[in-house]
């Protein structure tokens, strides 16, 4: 006998996606009565002074093993950044031409190659240390995040698929002692983890052994993460009690030594950003609606909705996790000032405050005149864009928005980046 169900989604399929769970905010008493969602965002308070930033530290590109091409200096890109063991570690790549010559010194061939390296910036001494990989790559090259790490003072790289360690004394790369294929590194309180879409492993025995904490290829599954599919947008971090946690599958799991236990959930469109004061989850408003910034709080293990872009671009049909009635929808802790547009924002957390940086400059193309000769011998003059300048508007080129836990309005600090060689932060399409 067949069972009759009400029209709609069959009950055995459950609800599509995982509805985000947000902790109700415990607003301070004088904020509790404020109907946040119904009123416009309070105007940000603007600093009376413009803070001028003059300290720009250029990467010593003359230390690169293969010279950055003079004709294409814009081929250089930073591909990742992280704060680890007190240093800022950045990964970079650049394209350069590699030539081969015959025994008589005549150029035989040339090829465009990609070179990869890492640079460490010491915030105390303000000095850079640049280390490049010896080999080059051929386009297309796709690198994931966290492919380098500092662990116990040593530099590791997984860019080539094998994990290698750099010997700063001999200035050579050597294979690391542990047999793990490439992946993303996480140095969490001195413990080293390597993860990719398939697995999470911890490096043990002083770098000689490994412990498998999750594997989607393992049959039968051993931990709860083994059977939930590819580990997309994975971020590992430790909570306030130094427990290992994983943000993946729009959820947050805690490792108890044997298994992963779901402790919270938060929708995300990207790999969450981990800061000392919390983990930031962003939805882009395009694939997952609405665009939001949420924070996982390490002490309470709760997810707070911080900002939400309610006015969506018409026609976008992104996935809406757990559509809920507007009256019962979680209220964001702050309202987004009308001058900001959320989807392309990222966020940084410092001392429980949310910081957003916004471009306030005007782009001016630098145009050069190029002269050539047409086939008929006449002069041809064309104009080529060779660069761009970013000019301050109203005396500043960047706004830093600070959202403070106990205050409803954002604070806007006007910054002006003034360095001869440095480009002010901006979005460049």
């Amino acid at each position, binding site marked *: 006998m067949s069972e009759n169900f009400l029209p709609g989604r069959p009950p055995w399929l459950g609800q599509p996606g995982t509805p985000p769970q947000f902790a109700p905010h415990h607003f301070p008493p004088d904020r509790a009565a404020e109907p946040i969602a119904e009123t416009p965002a309070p105007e940000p308070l603007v600093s009376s002074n413009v803070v001028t930033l003059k300290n720009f530290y250029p990467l010593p590109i003359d230390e690169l093993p293969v010279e950055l091409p003079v004709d*294409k200096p814009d081929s250089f890109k930073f591909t990742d950044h992280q704060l680890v063991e007190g240093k800022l570690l950045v990964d970079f790549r650049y394209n350069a031409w590699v030539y081969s010559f015959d025994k008589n010194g005549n150029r035989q061939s040339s090829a465009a190659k990609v070179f990869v390296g890492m640079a460490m910036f010491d915030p105390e001494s303000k000095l850079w240390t640049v280390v490049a990989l010896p080999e080059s790559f051929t386009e297309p090259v796709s690198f994931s995040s966290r492919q380098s790490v500092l662990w116990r003072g040593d530099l590791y790289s997984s860019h080539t698929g094998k994990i290698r360690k750099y010997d700063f004394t001999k200035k050579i790369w050597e294979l690391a002692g542990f047999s793990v294929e490439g992946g993303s590194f996480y140095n969490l309180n001195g413990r080293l983890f390597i993860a990719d879409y398939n697995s999470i492993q911890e490096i043990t025995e002083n770098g000689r052994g490994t412990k498998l904490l999750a594997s989607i290829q393992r049959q039968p599954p051993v931990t709860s993460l083994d059977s939930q599919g590819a580990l997309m947008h994975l971020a590992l971090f430790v909570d306030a009690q130094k427990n290992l946690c994983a943000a993946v599958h729009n959820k947050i799991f805690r490792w108890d030594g044997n298994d992963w236990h779901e402790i919270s959930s938060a929708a995300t469109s990207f790999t969450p950003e981990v800061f000392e004061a919390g983990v930031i989850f962003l939805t882009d408003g395009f694939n997952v609606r609405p665009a939001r910034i949420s924070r996982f709080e390490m002490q309470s293990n709760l997810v707070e909705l911080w900002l939400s872009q309610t006015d969506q671009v018409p026609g976008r049909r992104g996935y809406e996790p757990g559509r809920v009635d507007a009256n019962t929808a979680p209220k964001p802790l702050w309202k987004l000032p009308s001058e900001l547009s959320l989807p392309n924002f990222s966020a940084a957390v410092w001392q429980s405050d949310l910081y957003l940086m916004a471009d306030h400059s005007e782009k001016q193309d630098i145009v050069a005149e190029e002269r050539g000769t047409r086939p008929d011998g006449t002069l041809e003059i064309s104009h080529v864009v060779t660069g761009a300048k970013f000019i301050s508007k109203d005396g500043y080129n960047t706004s830093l928005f600070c959202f403070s836990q106990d205050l409803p309005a954002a604070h806007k600090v006007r910054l002006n980046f003034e360095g001869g060689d440095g480009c002010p932060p901006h979005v460049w399409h």
Partner: protein
Amino acid sequence: MVAPPMCGIESKPGFTIPGTVANRPWMQFTTNLLLCGQDAVPPNYKPGIWVAALDSIASEVNVLKQIQAHIRQQEKAKVEQIEKESQTRDQQARQAFLKKYDRNHNGHIDADEEDDARDDPYYIKYRLAEIHAPKEARPK
């Protein structure tokens, strides 16, 4: 895919598909510094990072926090003042109402006093206050 840019687009509502921007500015906080960088720079600039002492930024933020806290305190005081004045006015109206209709001066409008009081504009307010009053404060 790592997180989208740290630097949003001010005064430029609209939509850019995350990940399609060629440049992603970012910022990192240490205990005393703000480090800013971006993935790519135009060819006329050098790649590198900006370093700012957090003191200079924090002092601006703290001033703004104090201003906002002060504004909120003033608003709160204003609301409290309005409430206090309203209470005083209500108290005076109640006293005048009772003086007029509470013939036996027991502090309540009794059944035999109600006929006269019913037409007074304050009567409904008086009754509502009685309904919402704690049980022990209501007339026996």
